[in-house]
């Protein structure tokens, strides 16, 4: 289990993360969502040892992260938002470097490289330089690299950003498979649909604090099941209703340009953060 206890991070005089408390159970697919500037990346960077918290503690299985740093690093994997692969090296060499950094012996390393490149469908591209690969291929390679040393926790910061729908779905399947095999996944994403499909536990973050937490169904129950989109003077207003009939009555009274649909996780964000993800 990972536990964040009163974690804060200040830049200049401003708290980007403020007294954050979060417990993530082993084996879950966890999603941290929120608008830009909510503090998601700062939180994930602190958990990755890439940023020092201004205050608070991070506990891994009850032990302070600072006291078990090397041991902790053996257990974590990262799929960063940016493509953090060495462009002048081939796909295979990038994996080999990772294996060497994690002290995997030659035989084991080579076996694992083959296994993982098959898993992400890149074996035939193993000798291609990174700069010659497509965005989707790089993302899949980053996933393969992140799990090469069999981490217990996989951090993913916007893992499918900039990918076409087919590549995203391919990656979703890989992630579902990994989670089914017991890896804890900690993901931040701007794609609400992605979180809704993949995550069983979601925290919504805004202005450095967690403002809601639960399963997608629990979070959706916080707003009405039916959403009426009212388009007026170039702006869309959202009204939430528990019952379809009430929503229809309201729409009939209003007339004009309206649309009725079932709620999504994105509606929860819009309602709770008041400005939506990505603003």
């Amino acid at each position: 289990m990972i536990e964040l206890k009163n974690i804060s991070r200040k830049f200049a005089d401003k708290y980007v993360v403020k007294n954050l408390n979060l417990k993530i159970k082993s084996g879950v697919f966890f999603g941290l969502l929120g608008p830009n500037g909510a503090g998601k990346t700062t939180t994930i960077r602190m958990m990755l040892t890439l940023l020092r918290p201004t205050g608070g503690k991070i506990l891994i299985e009850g032990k302070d992260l600072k006291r078990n740093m090397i041991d902790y690093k053996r257990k974590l994997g990262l799929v960063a938002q940016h493509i953090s692969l060495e462009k002048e090296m081939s796909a295979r060499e990038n994996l080999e470097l990772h294996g060497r950094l994690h002290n995997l012996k030659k035989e084991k390393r080579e076996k694992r490289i083959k296994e993982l490149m098959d898993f992400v469908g890149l074996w035939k591209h193993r000798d291609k330089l990174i700069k010659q690969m497509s965005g989707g291929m790089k993302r899949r390679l980053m996933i393969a690299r992140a799990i090469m040393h069999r981490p217990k926790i996989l951090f993913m910061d916007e893992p499918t950003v900039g990918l076409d729908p087919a590549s995203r779905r391919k990656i979703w399947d890989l992630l579902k498979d990994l989670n089914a095999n017991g890896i804890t996944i900690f993901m931040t994403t701007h794609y609400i649909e992605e979180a809704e499909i993949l995550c069983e536990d979601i925290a919504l973050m805004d202005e450095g604090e967690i403002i809601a937490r639960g399963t997608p169904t629990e979070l959706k129950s916080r707003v009405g099941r039916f959403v009426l989109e009212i388009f007026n003077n170039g702006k869309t207003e959202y009204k939430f209703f528990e019952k379809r009939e009430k929503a229809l009555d309201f729409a009939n009274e209003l007339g004009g340009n309206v649309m009725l649909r079932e709620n999504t996780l994105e509606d929860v964000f819009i309602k709770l953060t008041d400005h939506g993800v990505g603003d």
Partner: protein
Amino acid sequence: MGIMPVIWQEWILFKRKFKTISAGALVSPLLYMLAFGLGLGKDLEVNGQPYLVFVIPGIIALTTMNTSYSSIAVLLNIHRIYDKTFEEFIISPLSMFNFTLGKVIAGALRGMYAGAIIIILSFLFGVNLNINIWFIILMFLNALIFAGVGFYAALIIDSHANMSRFSTFVITPMIFLCGTFFPVDNMPLIVKKFIYFLPLTHASQGLRSLARGDGFHWMNIFVMLTYLIVVFILGLREVYQVES
């Protein structure tokens, strides 16, 4: 594991860019040798020896400095700020000490490679240098210092433009001032005192003395070792700041 993953990566990149690296290491020193050694210095003698013989140890010193510095500084800065591949090392179980040591040694080896090219060139130019183990040690020490400076600079400087400014204000003046192209004794006293504080002065003087077969001064080694320890500690301190 130790420093080997870092060295291995640098080796792969070196092999891949072998031609570019070799050509890059060759161009400036060759120009210096042609312009200052053969062009300007054809009929010159310094301290009783042909100018070309005088200038080559200086060129070896400045080339090992320049190559060691830039092979680490530029790429590490890009890896840290732009493509973030630096993070792959920070979140790995590799200790920050081994990372620093690996990068500094890798940078120094690149500097040694460039220095070796100059030595070969100098033989082609008909200059016989007295190369012994102390010459190699001094060259390597010089390379380690400036790989360390490059490592430190890459970690504290936050833009590529400022990296270039750092090079303009710190590295370039040393190329010309530190007894590389002319004897430091020719300079005014106050400037001379300042120049004696700089590590490249001790590298070029030490290498020149060894190339002549005169041995070396322990003072050169002492000053260079002091610089090496200081830049290594500074680099290590910065890399520990990155890792929380």
